[in-house]
């Protein structure tokens, strides 16, 4: 792991401080320790999705019912959400997603680049405010600001946890072709 692990702990603390009750995710290495912390918590419900798309209407349903939620996904999942992301604008509802980035900084897998490179523009095209984080010490303040913008300011906000923060897999060490 290239960055201090405790920024994930900081995100978990912020979820509790901001009264996040539902956390949606697909399996993800970058978010892994955060997802496990949420799964072990009695204060929030963790929901594993079959596709990231489910997370948007789930967030809308939770908000209709008076609960705050966050969607954790990878940049590749953003493309799966596009039409339903429109709900955030149509319903004018708060929405927060934390996105672990692939396909941008030293990525070994060429298949990750198209969606990784497209992610910020796709989100912006759908009216989502985009914050990006490169450094571990910026994670806490940025996620805090995103949660405030959403649940106090009524906005849809994405935080990109960029590959410079997460580190890249050392493909050369993983095997030979």
């Amino acid at each position, binding site marked *: 792991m290239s960055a201090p692990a405790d920024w994930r702990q900081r995100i978990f603390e912020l979820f509790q401080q901001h009264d996040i*009750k*539902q956390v949606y995710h697909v399996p993800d290495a970058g978010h892994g320790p955060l997802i496990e912390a949420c799964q072990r918590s009695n204060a929030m419900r963790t929901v*594993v999705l079959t596709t990231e*798309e489910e997370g948007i*209407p789930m967030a809308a*349903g*939770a908000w209709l019912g008076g609960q705050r939620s966050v969607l954790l996904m990878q940049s590749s999942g953003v493309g799966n959400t596009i039409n339903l992301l429109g709900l955030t604008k149509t319903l004018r*509802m708060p929405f927060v997603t934390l996105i672990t980035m692939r396909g941008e900084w030293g990525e070994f897998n060429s298949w990750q680049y198209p969606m990784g490179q497209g992610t910020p523009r796709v989100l912006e095209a759908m009216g989502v405010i985009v914050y990006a984080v490169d450094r571990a010490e910026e994670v806490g303040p940025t996620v805090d600001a995103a949660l405030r913008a959403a649940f106090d300011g009524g906005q849809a906000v994405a935080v990109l946890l960029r590959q410079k923060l997460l580190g890249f897999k050392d493909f050369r060490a993983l095997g030979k072709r």
Partner: protein
Amino acid sequence: MDTATLSRRPLAKKILAGADDTLLVVAGLGSPNWDITEAGDRPLNMPLWGAMGGTVPMALGLALAQPGRRVLAITGDGDMLMSLGALATVAMQAPANLAIVVLDNGKFGETGNQATHTSPRGQGPVDSGAGTDLAMIARGCGIADSATVTAEREVEGLVADARRKAGPVFRVAKIKAEKLPFVMPPQDGAHLKDRFRQALLGTT
């Protein structure tokens, strides 16, 4: 060939009869939206005008947030086919307060009644489906209490299951393909969301 005998509007009316503030309803875009609205527009209805594939996950998020109230998702076969994976997500969470009713006419009504996958095979080049069995899919996803209703004599049980039985409950009602007038609720999504929250939570 349409062998279904149930009509969607009277059925929706029976399912929603006597709805009070303990019943929260999410309806899929198109006909189910018009169906629940004809039964009686109310603040605790969330009728979707778009967001195809979003009905069941929205109802799930709501059911998890409001475990003390009954949440009912009413949608069509087309919307359900677009979010089959959500049935596995529902099964994982197993909310006891959630019922899903699919009004299945085997047609994509909003786009001109083209056959969906649930239509029978062998209906010719335009009207054939694959006989896709949504209740079997739901059961396979892990929603054990999944069934299909086809006859008028089963409607009373369907209503009771949708309104009161410990969930998650999944029901497919085979209905006739009908051309009916649109009965439209307010369209503005922010208004629908705000009136729902105001009625449920006392705040927008």
